[in-house]
């Protein structure tokens, strides 16, 4: 049980770090990496819980999350490239054409 708590706390820490990253970074790619970090934190939670609960549903979920992460990465990076092509920048703050 202690073990589980450790994992949960650890993943919470990682999730928080990921969140901070998304909030404070300006580089889109780094922001995306931080999101990946958040997802990984969730994955860790899932696996730890799955281990604790003694069923594999959580791990299957992690599998799907990874797939989704991959798909997101593909789409996301394509979009970053398009953005860079358009603006010669990868700074999220430059994406402010539309506001108010």
């Amino acid at each position, binding site marked *: 049980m202690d073990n589980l708590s450790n994992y949960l706390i650890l993943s919470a820490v990682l999730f928080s770090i990921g969140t901070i990253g998304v909030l404070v970074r300006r580089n889109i790619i780094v922001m995306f990496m931080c999101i990946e970090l958040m997802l990984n934190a969730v994955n860790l939670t899932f696996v730890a819980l799955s281990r604790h609960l003694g069923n594999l549903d959580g791990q299957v979920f992690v*599998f799907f999350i990874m797939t989704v992460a991959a798909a997101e990465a593909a789409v996301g990076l394509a979009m970053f490239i398009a953005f860079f092509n358009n603006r010669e920048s990868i700074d999220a703050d430059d994406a402010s054409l539309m506001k108010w």
Partner: protein
Amino acid sequence: MDISTIFFTIVSVVAVVSALLVVTCKNPINSALSLILTFFCLATFYAMLEAPFMAAIQVIVYAGAIMVLIVFTIMLLNIRADANKKSFHNVPLGIVVGIITLLTAGSFLARGKVSDLPGQITPNIIHQVGHTELIGAVMFTEFILPFEITSILLLAAIVGAVILAKRNLS
């Protein structure tokens, strides 16, 4: 304090530090490399949690595929840390929010209670049958539909990536 706890502690520290590095490194490449390190740490945890298959695909998919893609993109775009440009927003407030998030998470984790219904998949069974096989059995029976959905999802992602990234026809 047994060996696994010590090991867990060490890996945890590495994971957290490398995660922090992801956030703090000005150079995206460094961030990416730190992230890879974090992923490896997580793979280690998965192995410790008796989920070797997860550890494997963590390395293959995340550290291998996704991070390669990211690093590749960074290289492709030839992004360097620009000293003149701010690369951070309000860091102190970010830290505050992060800490609050953490505290909140800690709070609900501490006061919460996970299910303790004993599941069928004990470490024994994993050792007997094999983790990959077990996962496969679940995935292709109970979770066949989500699995199929991922195929469409990936197809959609591929089409989308192509659409977004391909050179203009004109």
